[in-house]
Every structure is written in C-alpha cells, then in structure tokens.
C-alpha cells in the first residue's frame, strides 16, 4: 500500500491527479491518463494503522461532529495536519470527482475538500435505483453526465479521451471484474480457500486500480494460487466447521484480531457483501450507457428487495450457516436496513444473524468486551 501511494506521489508531478470516490467511473480517467487516488482507501489505511482516532479528533476540533463518517473525519484530519498522518498525507489533488452512488456523505466531504484545496469539483449524480432494473430516464441522466464529465476533464486537464484507449481500458476493467468475481466464487468450495479478512486486503486493486494492467495481473496470480489451494483441499481456516457471511465494510483496526475467535472455532467467512460490491459487469455495447448502468446498480444503491435477494442467493450458493453484520456507524447505506435483512434471512432461510455495532475506523466506538460476549454466545448457539 505504501508503494502505491509513494508511486502516485511521484507520478503526480507530471500527470493530473484526481481524488475520486470508490464508486466513480474511473475507467474514463484511466483512459485519459489522469491519475486517481481514493480518500476512502486512505481512510481505511488510517484505520488499519490504528491512527484514525487521532486524525478524527483533529477534524472534530475544527467543528466536525463526531457522528460523521470516520473515513471523512480521518481524511480531513490528515488534510489539516499532514505531519501527523500516514505517509505525511496524500499528495495535493488537481481535481475532485465525487459520485454519490455509494452514499450522500461523499458530496459534503468533497465540497469541504473543494473549499480547502480550491480546485474544481465534478459531481456525478447517480439516482437511487429504487426498482431493478433501473428506469430508463435514470440511465439516460447518468450517461448524459458521463459525457459531460469527459468534456469537463478535457477542459481541465487538456488530456483527451481517445476511443481505442477507452475501449482497451474498459476491456481490462471487465477482465479484472470478471477475475475478481471468479475469485469470490471460490468461496463456495468446501473448505473455502478464502476468508473475508484476506479479501479485504486483496480488494485494493479492484477498488483503486480498476482498468489497469496491474489489477488484471494481480488477480490472475491470485486466482492461480487459489486454484492450487482448491486442488489440494487447503482451506483458509483449518478444520472448517462453520461457513459465515459478512456484511458491511471491514473493521479496519481489528482486521484479523476480530476474526480470530471465529477461526479458532473453525468458522470461515466464505462470502461478504463488501467485496461483492465491485462485481458489476460492463457490457461491451455503448460504453457510456453500459457504464451508467453498471455504476447505478452497485450493491448499496439498489432497492432492499434486490439486495435481500442478492444476499439470500449468496447464503444459499455458499451454503452458509450464519451471518455476521457489522452495524457500521459511519455507513448509513450499508447499515440502515440491516435489521430487516436479518429478519428476512431468518424468516426465509432460517439463517441465524448476529449484528454488532462498531465503526470501520473510529475505534472509540468499538466495545471489546461486548463484542467478545456476543460472538461467543453466537458461536455457542450454532
């Protein structure tokens, strides 16, 4: 991860750099030779390095309420005091690109960044997909904005979007997504060669390097490695007894420690909704329309019945024995319907579900004792 940021810092000296949200159509920027960096990814890094709390406090001291998204607070803290931030903070952006398909908070976060850095901000408005498939006027709106986006990028960077490069980036993105999907599907094996925490680490390329050669190479290697494991019956969790499903973003500051009691009990998280969020396929037809469709249909932007069907489908195909849902204070789109998802799974499939309140980066909201109790009770129950 350090290498990734250091490399970008160097490259940013000669190429325009844009901060982008994780659900942004990065393929366009990649095709135009514009560098991208992800403040959300940086927030996760701060969480994983256990320095998020201090950075959040820096932001809170300037007036940001403590109940706002901890990625935003950590990142803003790093922007305000880069000397106290990992890697001395992220390099200054030339542009900001914000897409709300993952949540509405990103708009406010990026508006704050635009005010701080005084750089241009493009807002890509992706409406809530209240019925699946999306209504045509929604797709039209998003596709129109994508064309606007290209014009905006061309005006602000003097780089141009060339058709052949665009198509090759799209092809690579499709390939990376396809490989990632295959990797995730491996979890269906008994024993599963993958466990959720490993995926949380392995997901960086699909989030931050989509459309690049590197992402494709990385996942080809990972896929081969996992096929090896499957061939030899090697499971990610030795003595796999239970198969679980994980919901929501990872608890970054407890990345492996959280899963230890599960592993000790032979429980493997064979599937999760977070890594599955980057599995939307791009169809080879009209690129702007297909990008519009793909980025509107991301998991946390679609209606509850569709999300519930997706989760139920995962639960059945991966033959899970139970589900653990992280009630993440920072992420309303992921967390807000968890109670109903739990009820749905329980009623329709008889799958027990444990909901744990915590936060992805803000360790002050993590109650070690309470989590331990609940997890122990849940495992006993099974």
């Amino acid at each position, binding site marked *: 991860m350090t290498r990734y940021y250091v490399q970008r810092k160097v490259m940013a000296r000669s190429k325009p750099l844009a901060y982008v949200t994780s659900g942004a159509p990065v393929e366009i920027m990649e095709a135009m030779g514009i560098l991208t960096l992800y403040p959300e990814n940086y927030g996760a890094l701060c969480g994983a390095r256990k320095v998020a709390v201090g950075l959040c406090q820096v932001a809170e001291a300037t*007036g940001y309420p403590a109940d706002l998204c901890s990625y935003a607070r950590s990142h803003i803290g790093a922007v305000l005091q880069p000397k106290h931030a990992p890697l001395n903070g992220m390099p200054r952006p030339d542009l900001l690109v914000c897409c709300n398909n993952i949540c509405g908070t990103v708009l406010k976060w990026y508006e704050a960044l635009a005010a701080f850095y005084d750089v241009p901000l493009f807002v890509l408005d992706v409406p809530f997909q209240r019925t699946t498939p999306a209504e045509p006027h929604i797709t039209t709106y998003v596709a129109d904005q994508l064309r606007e986006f290209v014009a905006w990028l061309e005006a602000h960077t003097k780089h141009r979007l060339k058709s052949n490069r665009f198509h090759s980036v799209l092809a690579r993105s499709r390939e990376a997504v396809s490989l990632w999907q295959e990797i995730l599907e491996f979890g269906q094996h008994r024993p599963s060669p993958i466990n959720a925490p490993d995926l949380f680490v392995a997901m960086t390329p699909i989030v931050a390097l989509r459309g690049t050669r590197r992402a494709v190479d990385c996942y080809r290697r990972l896929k081969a490695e996992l096929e090896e494991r499957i061939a030899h019956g090697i499971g990610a969790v030795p003595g796999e007894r239970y198969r679980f499903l994980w919901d929501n973003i990872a608890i970054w500051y407890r990345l492996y420690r959280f899963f230890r009691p599960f592993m000790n009990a032979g429980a493997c998280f064979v599937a999760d909704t977070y890594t599955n969020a980057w599995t939307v396929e791009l169809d080879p037809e009209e690129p702007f329309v297909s990008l519009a469709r793909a980025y509107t249909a991301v998991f946390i932007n679609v209606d509850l019945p569709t999300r519930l069907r997706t989760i139920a489908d995962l639960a059945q195909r991966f033959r899970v024995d139970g589900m653990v849902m992280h009630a993440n204070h920072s992420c309303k789109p992921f967390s807000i319907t968890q109670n109903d998802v739990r009820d749905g799974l329980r009623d329709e499939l008889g799958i027990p579900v444990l909901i744990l309140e915590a936060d992805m980066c803000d360790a*002050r909201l993590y109650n070690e004792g*309470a989590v331990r109790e609940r997890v122990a009770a849940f495992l006993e129950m099974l």
Partner: protein
Amino acid sequence: MYTAGVDVGAITAKAAIFGDGELLATAIVLAGYDRAAAALQILDQAMSQASLTREKIARLVATGYGRVQVPGADRTVTEITCHARGAHYLCPDVHTVIDIGGQDSKGIAVGAGGKVLDFVMNDKCAAGTGRFLEVMAHALEADLADFGRLALSAPRRARISSTCTVFAESEVVTHLAAGTPRPEIIAGIHDAIAARVATMVGRIPIQDTVVLTGGVAHNAGVTRMLEEKLGHTIFVPEHAQLAGAIGAALIARE
C-alpha cells in the same frame, strides 16, 4: 454594598458574598435533590460566615443548572458567563477557562474584564465530567479524593478507548480481570477524561493564562494530563470550585 452569588450545580451548591469588591465568604454543600433548599442552605452558611443577614444583601444572582429554582434571586445568569467573570477575579490574566463540573464541562474564551468571547460545552454525556471519575472511583473502590495522586503515581496508563462512561466502566473491569495494576488503570481513566476535555476545548482558541475551574480542578491527575495534551500550563486557583458563585456575586454588583 453587599452582593451574593449562588451556583446550584448538579452535585454541589456554592455561594459567595462580596462586600465592596472584596470576597467576604464562600461555602459549598452537596446539592441533593431539593435545589431550592440547598440554595437557601448554602446562602445561609455564607451569610453567617460574613456575619450578614438577608436584608443586608443588596442583590442576589443565581447561576448553575438549578438557577431558576433559587428563591429570591434578582437575576439568573448562565454559569458560562459567571465562570468567566469568577475566573477573571481569581486570575486577572485569564484568557481560557476550562470548567469541569459534576455533569458537564466547558471551555470558555475570555476577553478583557472577564467577558465571554466564545464557549463550547459538553453536557450530553458523562464522559469528560466529574461523574465519569465518580463512576470509576466506585468501580475501583478507590477514594475520589486520592484519585488524582494515584493516577500520577503510575508508570504507565492503561488504554481506555470508549467514549461512553458505561462502556469505559466495563473496560476497567476487563483490565482488572486481566491483572493490570490499579494505578495504571486509574492513570488510564484520567488520561481518558483529559483527552475528552482537550478535544472539546480545542474548538476554541487556547491562550494563556489557562485557568481550571469546577470541582474536578482539585484533581492533580486531570490537571497534569490536561496540561500535557493542551501544551499549556494550567493555573488552578484556590477557589476553583467557587468560580461560578464568585462570578455571580460580582455580576450582582453591576
């Protein structure tokens, strides 16, 4: 002219009497549930100390959480304004007041003459208040009066990360079970409250002289750790807990 100030807080009631600009008497009592009675009691105590009767008191200003329940008050003024005034009397050089009371804490930016320029408050949550220390002292079966000294005697501070008092208490219990030495847990508790207060106060400009008021000011552990986190020396006046009542009595003169 004699004036009086009564500060009815969550845990204690305080009174101060001024005569011609001079502080004549101060008194503190536990407030209990009958605020009006506590106010009368504390006023009585201060008056007898100053050998005065009620008619001699020209004006009475009431402040604190229970200010509207003080019988006979000529005026009510918030404790923010009163603490600023009171701290200014106790330390004319003051520019920042940090008040850690029974169930709230405040940061006040003070200007010339003890005037309030800006303020921040935490009154939503027990963490960062005297209540937090009370709960923890109880959990550790320690004497609250000794708490600060015990905190400073520890070589290390145990980590208490919860922002919530209730969860923090369970963290303390976990530490005890794990065999963490008591002084280290106590040090951790003090660190937690100091951190919480420091974050809140960070929202106003911090300028010397920084004065600590309120009941918790007499806890040397909190004071030292707060100094550390703010990077400023903190002055704790002898009458720290009475700053509100003193301020109220002074405002009564205006």
